[in-house]
């Protein structure tokens, strides 16, 4: 360890300023030793000649201008990596908290990563079967994709994420290895426990790497949490050739931590007080999903974020949507009417599905069925809007049929149990059953051949008897 610097020049929120520092690099790590024998970690965030600004991960409580010695480590923040990561639990800054001791590192990597060269990316094509009809049929998840869940406080996004993890791994075959990297940022203790229990029950715990930054943990660590998690994910995917599903929850807490940090640095705020670089910062996380050419593994991301006040135009969901390849939006009205998972179909989207479904991937009729379901369900909304003005009785027969279709679609297609794991055939057949409720002329997104093959009003009989 190099020279120690006695004392501090200035303390401001999580930031401390040192004077007379030489030979320190931007982004370098430092260690603060307090007189009482405790240590804190910090990172260089600004350099002006020999004046250096550090951000202290654990906060600046109990620091004074005189009671610390600072030493610099000579390298940026790195995460020790080895296959032993699997099954371990770390805090938000990558230190083990499961009592099993430190990880014996085979290599260390800068947690900020490097941008993946677009020419070295492989375009994602293979779909991941989640066993959830609304997702498989309408917002298909593709390996190497980043597909966030836009939710709100009190909705069961955690349950949905747990179900995806539980069911997605089953479709793994051909000897491919699958693992989960789970990063919790500012989540409640109960939520972290819930995921731990779910991983245990579905028997994947020994293939999960957990990074936990609970809501009471320091916010600076929260900013590091997704980066540590993705560094671990990239290592497992690109060096050990595993297929990694990364769950990041909750990105809103992450962005809030970033805002807090930014304002303590005195930066000029952008929209709603978030720093102007929020987009670039979120991108540096989300863009770490993907597949590298010539490498066996992949990194798939499912970030979860709670939209403050269910507002999809809030900066966090808004900027996320601009970076990610689609979104799964949960709807409070559906949730309240007991539909699980409450996927709001119309604003949900998977940008990569068009190339990963259909002949050779799922089933030849998949793109058209998905298209038709979207289009018909959009008409349900029109009919409902009209019904709320003039009453259901006054509607035309066609509109009444749409209302009925909408009800059954939500009841049978969207709604499914936590243990209900549907195959893609079951899901698509169910889609045809529902479309068969409508008149043939209404199916304007399907061509004649498909209609001849699958369309049959008899299929819809069961909805009538129960309706």
């Amino acid at each position, binding site marked *: 360890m190099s020279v120690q610097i006695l004392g501090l020049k200035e303390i401001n929120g999580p930031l401390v300023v040192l004077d007379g520092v030489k030979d320190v690099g931007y982004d370098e790590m430092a260690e603060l030793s307090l007189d009482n024998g405790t240590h804190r970690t910090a990172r260089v965030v600004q350099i002006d000649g020999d004046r250096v600004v550090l951000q202290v991960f654990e906060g600046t409580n109990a620091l004074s201008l005189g009671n610390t010695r600072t030493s610099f480590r000579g*390298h940026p923040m790195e995460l020790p990596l080895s296959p032993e990561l699997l099954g371990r639990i770390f805090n938000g800054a990558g230190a083990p908290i499961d009592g099993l001791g430190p990880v014996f590192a085979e290599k260390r990597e800068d947690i900020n990563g490097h*941008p993946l060269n677009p*020419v070295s990316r492989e375009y994602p094509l293979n779909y991941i079967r989640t066993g959830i009809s609304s997702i498989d049929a309408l917002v298909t998840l593709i390996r190497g994709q980043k597909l966030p869940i836009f939710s709100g406080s009190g909705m069961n996004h955690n349950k949905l994420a747990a179900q995806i993890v539980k069911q997605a791994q089953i479709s793994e075959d051909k000897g491919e290895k699958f693992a989960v990297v789970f990063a919790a940022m500012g989540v409640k203790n109960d939520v972290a426990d819930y995921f731990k229990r779910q991983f245990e029950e579905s028997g994947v715990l020994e293939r999960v790497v957990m990074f936990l930054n609970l809501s009471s943990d320091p916010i600076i660590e929260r900013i590091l949490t997704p980066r540590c998690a993705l560094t671990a994910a990239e290592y497992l995917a690109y060096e050990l050739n595993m297929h990694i599903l990364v769950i990041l929850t909750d990105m809103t807490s992450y962005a809030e931590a970033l805002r807090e940090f930014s304002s303590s640095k005195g930066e000029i705020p952008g929209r709603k007080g978030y720093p102007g670089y929020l987009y670039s910062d979120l*991108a540096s996380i989300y*863009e770490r999903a993907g597949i590298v050419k010539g490498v066996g593994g992949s990194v798939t991301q499912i970030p979860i974020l709670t939209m403050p006040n269910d507002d999809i135009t809030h900066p966090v969901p808004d900027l996320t949507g601009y970076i990610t390849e689609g979104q799964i939006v949960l709807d409070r009205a559906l949730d309240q009417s007991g539909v699980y998972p409450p996927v709001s179909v119309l604003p949900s989207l998977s940008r990569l599905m068009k190339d990963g479904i259909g002949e050779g991937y799922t089933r030849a009729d998949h793109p058209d069925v998905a298209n038709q379901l979207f289009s018909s369900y959009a008409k349900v909304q029109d009919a409902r809007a009209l019904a709320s003005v003039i009453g259901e009785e006054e509607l035309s027969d066609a509109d009444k049929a749409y209302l009925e279709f909408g009800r059954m679609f939500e009841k049978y297609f969207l709604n499914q149990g936590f243990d209900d794991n549907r195959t893609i055939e079951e899901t698509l057949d169910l889609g045809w059953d529902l479309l068969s409720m409508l008149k043939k002329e209404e199916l304007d997104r399907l*061509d004649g051949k498909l209609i001849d093959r699958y369309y049959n009003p008899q299929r819809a009989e069961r909805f009538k008897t129960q309706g």
Partner: protein
Amino acid sequence: MPNTVFSINGPVVKVRNTRDFSMMEMVFVGHKRLIGEVIGITDQATTIQVYESTTELKPGEPVEGSGAPLSVTLGPGLLTNIYDGIERPLLDIAARSGAFIGEGVSVSPVDLSKKYEVTLTVHPGDRVEEGAVYATCPETPAIVHKCMLAPGLSGEIISAEPDGEYTVNDVVACLRTDDGREVPLTLLQKWPIRTPRPVSRRLPIERPLITGQRVIDTLVPIAKGGTAAIPGGFGTGKTMTQHQLAKWCDADIIVYIGCGERGNEMTQVLEEFRELIDPKSGRAMTDRTILIANTSNMPVAAREASIYTGITLAEYYRDMGYHVAIMADSTSRWAEALREISGRLEEMPAEEGFPAYLPSRLAEFYERAGYMVNLNGSEGSVTIIGAVSPQGSDFSEPVTQNTKRFVRAFWALDKSLAYARHYPAINWTTSYSEYLDELAPYYRERYGEEFLECRQRISNILAEEARLMEIVKLIGADVLPEDQKLVIETARLIRVGFLQQNAFHADDTYVPLEKQLGMMQVILYFYDSAMKLAKSGVPVSLITKTGISDDIIKLKYNVPNNQLEKLQEYYPLIDRKLSEVK
């Protein structure tokens, strides 16, 4: 005394007490030789924005000037290539530093060892002016590259090599300028990215950029040399629309700038363009394309530069007499890069944290479009089509509003259309094109009054529908009189059968103007014939029951682009089906 780094804050680096640098000069920072640009000078400190990550950079590391502003290298080898925001070829970077982009990689933008079949077009003793072509070579099978005297150079050719194979750095001719300097001419030249390349004069706009997309060509056309903005929230299909235009518009050269967008999308463009065949030249699309990919996780300062790099490359090909179209996806990311750097410089923010100079920067960019007479007398154009990603899908935000002031075609993407999977989700009521009047003579010359008349009637029916839908929303469709129901039904045919276009269908992905006109005529013929029935009291529900609507909607799939005579079959079909009603 050598200049050294004094302070570091993200991509902004300062050097103290120096008078060595000039504004916008390109500099090399640190031992890794990171590329940067001088963006501010005071007598105390020179401010540099660095185009690469500054992690591990230390104060005291050397900063070295290049003596020239940030420039791009221009010459054969640009086409088919893919660059980052400061014209570094990504394929070569991948070969050097692997799948992840390292710092300080210095590679030539064009292949230095490739030999081109060069034909000299000048002889010793020729008097040549700036912009004159002195050599040509086939750059790709589709495009002939013309090496031109850089602006500002003129004089007499004193020697010229024979035709033959040369690399880009070989001297093929020598020029003696008027002040007696001898300038060796290679196939390359440099040009600073923030300075527009000079032209002889601007021409009025009068030719459309045909895109093969019905809603654009028919309702809101764009001209060659024009500017258009595509604003839309996420998921409304900005990128899809840009891809469609890049694939099918009738420009000679496409410069596609992926500015702060997704990595996987750029990979898709790369793969797709390699497989696609350009209908005009019969060659791969990549042969006429330059890609600039500065994805959202690549350094933000290079994102700011990527737009200028792109437009400079475009102007260079325009100078050769080509029609170039630029797709910038997305200009909002570029504006955000401006904001981010402005914040680091602690400048006074204007609206929503954007710097006060945002409008003037946008204007500077869009004004580089145009239909020009070049210095060498040839004519070429640069068309700019910029995507805008409004925050929160709110078109009143500063980037959208300021862009609106500087573009003349505005293609507003609509969330509700996208939710209903109506693509392209260009809203026909809020979009507009100011080019209609200027392009009218072109349409008139080719198609007589017919095209413009059909267009006007189609847009009237859509406007009428929008008005009627206000009523329908309140009281339902049943109470409308039959003729108004027919307006709604016809508008549906227009929306589903004409405006909706399937990018994945082999015939529907690109539709020539002749077919667009034919489709409008069929729809309007149906409208006129059915209107007679509706006026005489025949219920519209009986008309739709004949299935004629369905036939017209499927017309786009059933009449291939090369068998337009099939359109004629629809007139007797409409007559027959309508005669069944009664």
